[in-house]
């Protein structure tokens, strides 16, 4: 069991021992490249699986089986879709700001890889163990706002621009409750390091200590990811497809990959901060627990998406500024009080 739990660490040690000095620059570089490849594989695999799962969940909620033609129970559908996307013509609209137009999907595809690199997948299994993990994560994931604006601006299309502007308004508003909801956990653990936060949850996951923060995080996270019921950025009925209107083929596919990658990253953060990360009963290895928790979070997001209708844009802003933000501040206040009382009682 212990071997299985540390399987990846043992493999890493084995690779390091191939070098004369296991901690030389070359060994570190090799390990970093391997870690990078693993994160890329996680992002791409997650996107491939999630796109299918999304369609399956959509089907199940409306009493259909979902995609069911290609492969066993339709499990190869996404692969066929990806191949189709590759075969499509790459169109750059006339009058587009070509550089911005082309660079936006590339950046958005990089973001989930950068954010997933700091997540601890198991004990000592973070590809990069950053002391400012949460800070880095939120900072990087907020760059996606910029990508949406770049795509909207570069497309030279009024719908795209509208969608891009909506993205900025929505994502910046929801960033604040999202950050504040994480603050309670940081106050308890006194650390921004995701590894330390997971270690602190060995007895009680923070969802029990911080239920309000979890709800705020979940709602704000949905809005941050532009997922229904907060998908005003790409609301088909209003702005065609928002910033993606003019994108075709693989560029559009990159946006799609980025969206699902970001969803994985956000679920991974939720699993790490609130659900106890890789902590769990010892009959399964830590990384299995971690990915199960991520899966549960992703399923919740899909479930919400296929249940609720899209929120109106003024209600969206009201929800962020008049409801979630005061609640988040209240949560910080209560957490502070709780910590103070705890110290007082424990005589600290």
């Amino acid at each position: 069991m212990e071997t299985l739990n540390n399987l990846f660490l043992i493999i890493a040690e084995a690779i390091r021992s191939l070098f004369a000095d296991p901690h030389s620059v070359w060994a570190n570089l090799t390990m970093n490249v391997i870690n990078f490849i693993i994160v890329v594989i996680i992002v791409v695999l997650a996107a491939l699986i999630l796109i299918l799962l999304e369609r399956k969940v959509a089907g199940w909620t409306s009493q259909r089986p979902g995609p069911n033609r290609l492969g066993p129970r339709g499990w190869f559908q996404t692969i066929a879709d990806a191949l189709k996307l590759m075969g499509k013509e790459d169109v750059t609209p006339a009058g587009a700001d070509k550089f911005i137009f082309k660079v936006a999907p590339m950046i958005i595809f990089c973001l989930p890889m950068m954010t997933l690199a700091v997540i601890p997948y198991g004990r000592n299994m973070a590809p990069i163990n950053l002391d400012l993990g949460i800070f880095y994560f939120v900072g990087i994931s907020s760059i996606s706002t910029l990508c949406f604006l770049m795509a909207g601006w570069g497309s030279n299309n009024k719908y795209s621009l509208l969608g891009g502007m909506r993205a900025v308004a929505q994502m910046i508003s929801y960033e604040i409750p999202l950050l504040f909801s994480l603050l309670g956990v940081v106050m308890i653990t006194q650390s921004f390091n995701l590894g330390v936060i997971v270690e602190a949850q060995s007895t009680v996951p923070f969802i029990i200590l911080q239920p309000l923060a979890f709800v705020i995080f979940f709602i704000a996270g949905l809005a941050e990811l532009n997922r229904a019921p907060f998908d005003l950025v790409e609301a088909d009925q209003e702005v065609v497809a928002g910033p993606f209107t003019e994108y075709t083929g693989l560029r559009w596919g990159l946006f799609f990959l980025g969206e699902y990658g970001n969803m994985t990253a956000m679920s991974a953060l939720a699993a790490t901060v609130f659900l106890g990360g890789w902590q769990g009963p010892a009959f399964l290895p830590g990384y299995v627990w971690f990915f199960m928790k991520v899966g549960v979070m992703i399923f919740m997001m899909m479930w919400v998406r296929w249940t609720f209708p899209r929120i109106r844009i003024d209600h969206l802003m009201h929800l962020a500024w008049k409801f979630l933000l005061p609640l988040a501040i209240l949560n910080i206040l209560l957490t502070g009080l709780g910590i103070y009382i705890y110290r007082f009682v424990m005589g600290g």
Partner: protein
Amino acid sequence: MFGKGLLQGLGITFKRMVGPNITEFYPEEKPNLPTRVRSSMGLDRDKCISCNMCAMACPNSVIKLTSEKNEANKKVLKTYHMDVGRCLFCGLCTEACPTKALKVTQEFENAVYEPEDMQWDMIQRAERKGKVE
């Protein structure tokens, strides 16, 4: 309570998710048609006494049949044609049939490419169906 409706909605979709699908896999599996569907006609040649009641009952004169007399001076069916392009599947012919030789059936894959294919030779169809079974 605030948010009660949201939870209720989630509950409904979850019930749908775990419940059975209502999709019918049509080409692979035959659909469950309602019991009183009338979509095709079938003739039992041996039961038919060539009384022509069906042709008289038909409001659109779909049915044309001819008969001949055998040695025992009984009428025997010779040809039985239906112009299904005009047929309403109203079932009046089956009600008129004294021996229940003509029946409404539930086959529904009646689409054809040529107008001529809508002229059904009921005797031939009955034989073909007998072979399939």
